[in-house]
């Protein structure tokens, strides 16, 4: 009778085994596969181009390399390099990479991205870059920023200043920084490889880690906020290759050691006990955090580390793959959360780029594939999570910008701005800003109005002064293009006060009436109350109402007080149009 034996359920790849041993369920190789469900093997999904980074030449061309892609606040930060321009560029992309943002925050939906700015010039080779995000600022370091011979590429920052994304050089007490790498940990910026000074031979410190003040504070350019990682000082053997934060530990990897940094802020940090004195992290991109566990490529192969436990070597399952890998210092590691895999991008044989992936399933603790060809050489990789809003429709930018600006009701301290909305959906708010035309000055927020509102009257202005305003929509953190500044949004305030409104006489009897009105929004004005007979003959001053007062009791005698007039006044300026009320006595 025919006997049947199953090879499944499949337990992953082991590429080196004793071939004389029964090994049901274990695979020699598995390419383009992911584990699914109860150890079923599914064909891996394909890949597609999300966006192409362009340079800033007169006729823009595609960059020749992508050096970084990763999450930054609610955006995606990317860095590209072009050998045509010898420049490295930074880009701010939509969270789904469907478009790019200008420095002013305007979104363009397109398949190609224009640079937000230039990071470095005269840079002939694509840089290896590390980026740290700390309290809304991105810190960008070139892996070869300096060496014992010279300083090359300053550490850069990208942050939102008012409403403009701004690139700058990182400094410590006014001194330039040339860090070889950056990371963020417990509200501190970490920078390594550089000690402050003007002589490269002594400032190049590949084993030195400096850290900034708490809460994203400045790097100390003159003090002692630093320590050396490793057992030796001024030794390239102890060069910091990589710092990756996993759970509450910052793992600092030299080529041949791994040091956990733990504590509750820099005043309590302890880095005294390495978890590994023999195998470290091979390169600047050769580690990632997945579910609070550090996964990295060591000099022996893939490994993982949890908290301060001894690292767990993973290389025994794939010795043939590990032995075939060339340039382990160029390995790139990323976590694919959708299929529970840590991806080790590497190269072997005649390949000149990281075109192969070795994938480790972290949930089933098996290698799913050791040598799948991903199709392109990979310089960097990272998991990007979508930006989701509470509504089921998902996070999308405003449908369109405001249009048709109208400026009216111009007075000494206030003006009315009106527009046609480009998006009236319930998730949209509209922001109005103004500034002096001269200068021009910084934008000041005039107000934020809710969905569907298409006008705003704002004050706080000075008389006889030229201003301009702009308005834009905001939806799920995405801003539309702004309407203005342009001719329809430019105006000059007058010297006339804005009038009050809504005057009425209530509680009228034979001897008294109460005048009630609504003060204008202009601040610093006085309110004058005048009375007359009804019909009006001659106006007489009755009282000056205090600031904010909007009702006043009027004595009525000989018919005077049956008519009331309210005006706003301000020293040196023209009184507002008078507001009159005067019903006959009941």
């Amino acid at each position, binding site marked *: 009778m025919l006997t049947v034996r199953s*090879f499944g359920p499949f337990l992953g790849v082991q590429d080196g085994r004793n071939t004389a041993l029964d090994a049901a369920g274990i695979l020699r190789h598995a390419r383009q596969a992911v584990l699914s469900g109860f150890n079923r093997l599914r064909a891996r999904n394909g890949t597609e181009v999300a966006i192409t980074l362009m340079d800033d030449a007169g006729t823009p061309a595609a960059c020749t390399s992508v050096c970084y892609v990763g999450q930054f606040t609610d955006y995606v930060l990317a860095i590209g390099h072009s050998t045509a321009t010898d420049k490295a560029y930074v880009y701010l992309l939509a969270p789904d990479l469907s478009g790019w943002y200008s420095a002013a925050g305007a979104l363009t939906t397109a398949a190609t991205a224009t640079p937000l700015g230039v990071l470095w010039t005269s840079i002939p080779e694509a840089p290896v870059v590390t980026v740290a995000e700390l309290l809304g600022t991105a810190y960008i370091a070139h892996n070869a920023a300096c060496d014992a011979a010279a300083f090359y590429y300053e550490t850069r920052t990208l942050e939102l200043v008012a409403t403009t994304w701004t690139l700058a050089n990182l400094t410590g007490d006014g001194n330039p920084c040339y860090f070889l790498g950056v990371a963020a940990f417990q509200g501190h910026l970490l920078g390594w490889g550089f000690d402050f000074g003007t002589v490269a031979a002594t400032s190049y410190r590949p084993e030195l880690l400096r850290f900034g003040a708490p809460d994203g504070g400045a790097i100390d350019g003159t003090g002692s906020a630093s320590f050396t990682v490793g057992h030796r000082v001024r030794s390239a053997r102890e060069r910091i290759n990589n710092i990756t934060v996993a759970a509450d530990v910052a793992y600092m990897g030299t080529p041949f050691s791994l040091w956990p940094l733990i504590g509750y802020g820099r005043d309590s940090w302890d880095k005294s006990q390495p978890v590994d004195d023999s195998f470290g992290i091979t390169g600047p991109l050769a580690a990632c955090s997945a579910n609070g566990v550090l996964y990295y490529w060591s000099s022996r192969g893939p490994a993982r580390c949890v908290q301060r436990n001894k690292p767990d070597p993973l290389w025994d399952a794939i010795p043939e793959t590990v032995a075939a890998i060339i340039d382990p210092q160029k390995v790139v590691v990323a976590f694919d959360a959708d299929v529970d895999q840590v991806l080790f991008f590497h190269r072997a044989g005649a390949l000149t780029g990281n075109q192969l992936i070795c994938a480790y399933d972290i949930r089933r603790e098996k290698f799913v594939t050791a040598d799948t060809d991903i199709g392109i050489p990979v310089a960097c990789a990272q998991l990007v999570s979508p930006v989701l809003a509470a509504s089921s429709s998902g996070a999308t930018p405003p449908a369109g910008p405001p249009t048709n600006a109208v400026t009216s009701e111009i007075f000494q301290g206030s003006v009315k701005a009106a527009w046609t909305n480009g998006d009236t959906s319930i998730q949209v708010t509209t922001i109005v800003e103004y500034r002096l035309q001269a200068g021009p000055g910084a934008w000041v927020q005039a107000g934020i109005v809710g969905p569907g509102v298409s006008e705003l009257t704002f004050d706080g202005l000075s008389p006889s002064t030229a201003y301009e305003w702009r308005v834009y929509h905001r939806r799920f953190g995405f801003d539309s293009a702004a309407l203005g500044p342009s001719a329809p949004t430019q105006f000059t305030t007058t010297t006339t006060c804005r009038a009050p409104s809504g005057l009425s006489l209530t509680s009228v009897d034979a001897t008294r009436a109460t005048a009630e009105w609504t003060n204008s929004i202009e601040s610093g004005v006085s309110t004058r109350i005048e009375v007359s007979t009804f019909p009006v003959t001659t106006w007489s001053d009755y009282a000056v109402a205090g600031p904010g007062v909007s009702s006043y009791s009027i004595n009525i005698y000989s018919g005077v007080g049956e008519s009331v007039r309210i005006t706003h006044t301000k020293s040196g300026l023209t009184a507002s149009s008078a507001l009159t009320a005067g019903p006959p006595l009941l």
Partner: protein
Amino acid sequence: MSASQFVYAGAADSGRIIRLGAPVLTQITSAGSTAPLFDIRTWEHFPVGPGGVAIFRVFTVRFWSDAGYNLRVTPYIDGVALSTQDFSASTTGEVAIKAYIAQRGASASCRVQQLTRLGNFELIDIQVGYFPLRAIP
């Protein structure tokens, strides 16, 4: 199957950022695109022990697809590859194909490859059928 989070990879030879795990049937390459073809090979089964002898008669490959299949099955007996057998059809759902052989030996393994990528594909199991002649553990 669609994904909510994606790994984005930056190309080292162009300005392209590639989305991995996209619900598409092609894979971007430096020259254009290609189909990512599923390809696995098992280790050996020794159903009658390393010193035993069996007559191996059939490999049954069970899988699921949503758009048909075009597969190649390569049986191995005692580490030696036998003639490949190709299977294709537009059948969807769970399918079992049988690669018949008649070979004596001690160990059996199998390689399953996609020849073209028609749609989503899951390998469920591979089974080998044999008649034991002499079992030596």
